[in-house]
């Protein structure tokens, strides 16, 4: 049996990480509106608090008090379950991502990762692949044609891009010789993997945006053709839960890109945790920037791009990396 202090540290880490994650999710909505506002030469939210800083809290209160509508023809059980199914995977995948070096606190060494699993990378992929259920089931259970189409689109999109996403990190695995994310960060102590895997990094980034259903891959909720897609019938906190899941996924994906390709928390001068956050928010800024810049893909373009460009490219990247690793 591990000592009691182990449990205390564990619970503390979980509470801190998930508390910060919830806070980030709330303030990402503010950041997104501010950045997009800036790009479109507007001010963005300004009324609630200085520079609209209290806007997420106002939004949260508003969403909680909104009327919660369940369509009469909906499949009630699954309709109520689906937002939770989207939210849980989005939040638990962060558990294996290291966000800082080992620190000493009150005479104990504490690893700044909730748990270092020896199949950590696969765990993230496994949990991420479950996020589809929330969207597909929500779309189906609403008993609405637009919602169903949105749900089906997301299933097709996520399965197609998950394949290239998985293949894009095989190069990283070959270089690090481990599936543990802590080991992968340690393997990048001399040079970041983005130097050896630039193509893998690009494929990962594109697929990651597609996995989070964000522009230019936001087909499941394409407003102009599907009204709002899979969440068209959802209101109140259930609607909010889908958006919390989307923003939490953004954070996870940005953290994964940081960990796999940019050396995780490694960097000179600044403390490790700060480096991790800087890199993480760099990616998040990029995601917001892309949304403000790029128009949405058409469905056939999306499929063609995924299967005929990204997948062969990812496979070629694996072959080339394998050749280099074998010859080294």
């Amino acid at each position, binding site marked *: 049996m591990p000592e009691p202090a182990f449990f205390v540290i564990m619970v503390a880490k979980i509470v801190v990480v998930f508390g910060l994650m919830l806070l980030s999710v709330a303030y990402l909505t503010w950041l997104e509106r501010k950045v997009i506002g800036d790009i479109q030469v507007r001010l963005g939210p300004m009324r609630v608090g200085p520079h609209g800083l209290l806007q997420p809290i106002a939004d949260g209160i508003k969403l909680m008090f909104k009327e919660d509508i369940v369509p009469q023809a909906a*499949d009630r059980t*699954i309709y109520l379950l689906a937002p939770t199914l989207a939210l849980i995977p989005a939040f638990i995948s962060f558990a294996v991502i290291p966000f800082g070096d080992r620190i000493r606190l009150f005479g104990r060494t504490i690893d700044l990762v909730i748990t270092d*699993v*020896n*199949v950590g990378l*696969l*765990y993230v*992929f*496994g*949990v991420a*692949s*479950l996020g*589809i*259920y929330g969207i*597909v*089931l929500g779309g*189906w259970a609403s008993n609405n044609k637009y919602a*169903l189409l949105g*749900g*089906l689109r997301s*299933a*097709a999109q*996520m*399965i197609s891009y*998950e394949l290239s996403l998985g293949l894009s990190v095989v190069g990283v695995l070959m270089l690090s010789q*481990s*599936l543990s994310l802590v080991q992968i960060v340690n393997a990048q102590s001399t040079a970041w993997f983005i130097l050896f895997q630039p193509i893998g990094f690009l494929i990962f980034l594109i697929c990651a945006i597609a996995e989070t259903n964000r522009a230019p891959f936001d087909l499941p909720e394409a407003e102009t053709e599907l009204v709002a897609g899979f969440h068209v019938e959802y209101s109140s906190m259930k609607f909010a839960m889908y958006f919390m899941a989307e923003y939490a996924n953004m954070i996870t994906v940005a953290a994964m890109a940081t960990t796999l390709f940019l050396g995780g928390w490694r960097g000179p001068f600044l403390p490790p945790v700060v480096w991790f956050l800087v890199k993480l928010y760099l990616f998040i800024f990029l995601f917001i920037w892309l949304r403000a810049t790029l128009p949405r893909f058409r469905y056939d373009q999306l499929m063609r791009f995924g299967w005929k460009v990204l997948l062969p490219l990812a496979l070629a990247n694996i072959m080339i990396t394998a050749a280099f690793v074998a010859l080294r």
Partner: protein
Amino acid sequence: MEWLVFAPLAAVALATAVLVIVLRNPIYCALSLVGTFFALSGLYLLLQAQFIAVVQVIIYAGAIMVLFLFVIMLLDVGHEPPAWLQRDRPKLVLGIVLISLLLLELVVAIGSRVSQGIRGPYTSELVNAIGNTQLVGRLLFTDFLIPFEITSIILLIAIVGAMVLAKR
């Protein structure tokens, strides 16, 4: 200690497996099957097979079952089973007889300990020392290379076959 984890997981696996065939709505059946896969994944973890446990979730729960749902939703399969699946007395009797035979066979097989197999060289300590994933990879490309290659060719044939049939 191990029982505390094993018993609930086994119960969930069995209960959800029964729900797969008992429930009427095909979507609920598919979701029950996802529950079974999760319980199985937990059982693999209990056996210290982390790699298999995670791959089970990725492949079955994350990919194959989503495709199942996709097909069920697209075809809009009705809530009532088709006519040839409706219950009637002869089928019920035949089913009970077959199930009883199968159960008997199972009891005999477990009782005679024929199916226990031989103890391999890989204890869980050894597996953890080498690394779960590393060991699976090494064995796939050495001892089990021919079955592995044959499987991949069979899968390739299936993919090409599906493409040919779909293009027709």
